[in-house]
């Protein structure tokens, strides 16, 4: 499977992360998205007329939506991640895969604006992203009260993988995650997955060190 990739793209990271977790090897082709705009080159437009990344090519099939690529990889190698157990679970996966696009269009666009100087109305993007994050927080909080830790049930599915990157990287676009305790617990569970890999801006889970004893006096730093 050939995967056209950009290291700083959260949508590309969805696929790299999922492939790592299920043990699927991808043949990575780095595309000079920034500053080279190679995704708009003739060769890349011939592959994907939408001029977006990522793109997956495999045995006569070309996929250009990251959520479709997740679906394909799961069906191919790890069907449990499709979350097909019950009608409710299956519908929830579909619901959150669609929601992931809202995150791309809001939090993702805010990050691209703040970091790579992409055009956009930053206040409107952050407002849309905040609405989406609050919805996600409410849903995860409700899930926890049902005894579930993930979006579609009590185990992770491709829906969690699809939503995770843009949420974890929201601070890059000026959207702090401090107000969302359920989101932070959910991210922690995902970072703890066997085979988890990082991307720039998303760190691995460091091992918990033993309790150090009484807390020392904390020296507080002041804002300038």
């Amino acid at each position: 499977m050939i995967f056209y990739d950009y290291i700083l793209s959260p949508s590309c990271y969805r696929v790299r992360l999922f492939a790592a977790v299920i043990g699927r090897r991808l043949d990575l082709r780095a595309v000079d998205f920034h500053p080279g705009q190679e995704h708009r080159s003739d060769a890349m437009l011939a592959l994907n007329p939408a001029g977006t990344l990522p793109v997956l090519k495999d045995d006569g099939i070309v996929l250009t939506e990251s959520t479709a690529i997740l679906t394909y990889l799961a069906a191919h190698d790890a069907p449990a991640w499709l979350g097909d157990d019950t009608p409710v679970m299956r519908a929830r996966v579909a619901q959150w895969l669609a929601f992931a696009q809202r995150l791309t269009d809001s939090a993702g666009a805010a990050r691209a604006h703040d970091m790579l100087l992409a055009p956009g109305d930053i206040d409107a993007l952050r407002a849309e992203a905040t609405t989406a994050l609050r919805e996600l927080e409410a849903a995860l909080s409700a899930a926890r009260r049902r005894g579930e830790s993930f979006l579609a049930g009590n185990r992770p599915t491709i829906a969690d993988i699809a939503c995770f990157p843009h949420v974890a990287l929201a601070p890059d676009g000026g959207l702090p995650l401090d107000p969302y305790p359920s989101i932070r617990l959910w991210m922690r569970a995902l970072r703890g997955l066997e085979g988890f890999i990082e991307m720039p801006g998303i760190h691995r889970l460091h091992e918990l060190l033993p309790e150090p004893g009484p807390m020392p006096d904390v020296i507080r730093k002041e804002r300038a």
Partner: protein
Amino acid sequence: MSDQGAMRDHWYPVGMTKQLTAGGRDTLLMGEPIRVYLDNGAPAVSDGTGRSLPVIDRFGHVWTSLGAPNRDLFTIPEADQPGRRLVDVGVCRVRCSPLRAVENFLDIAHFPFVHTDILGSEPHTEVQRYEVEIREDVDEVWATKVKFYQPQAAKSAEGGITTDYMYRVCAPTCSVLYKTCPPKPGEWDVIALFVQPLTETLCEVWPWMALYDDAAEMTDLIHFQQMIFVQDRSVLENQLPALLPLDPGMEIPTRADMTSIAYRRWLKRHGFTYGAQLVAA
């Protein structure tokens, strides 16, 4: 917003030469709006009143100054050696003081924790003693004999090596590092950080490299450096206080911070205080 002070008369990067268009790029330099554009095929910069600013086209980037620089932009003689590949890494905007972006570039001790398993790894966290000086003849900060164990020092590195570094601050918001070049022992790879100060707490960073590496694709070289810099970005955006403190009273440096101490001392001596605080808040 404090005064631009002595930094006004220095050169700053304001765009990548290859990306210039006649329509131009509207941006900021130390709080003042400027436009960087192509005028009959040549790079040009004007300020908010339409006044033309001085321009230098060097290291793949356009440089300008709001004031009257009394000397040429620095040079990097190693970058002119034949056989090097010149890499325009592209811009990354960071909500931090431009001086903090440079200071972070000078720091080695964070490698194992921020660039884990690439530029450093636990338990190899010790920064051995190195030498720092302010070279009066060229008026630059230099750190030499820096050594650090790195799992993957460069795109071209295979396996862990102890990497030698030299660091150089050659302008208020520019630094160049020289490091062991895995495919060409005896030569140095050159990696520069050119920082455009938009405001005192916002900057655009233009990394640039001159490497000996015949094997890697250009895109892979770009992505390696983008990965490293974006790992630093979230740390930089969370540093407090936002302005770089030049008052030694509030912080207790360690031996590993010698380059940073020299940089801060050099900034203070010259009145390079745009993005700094002189008295602890």
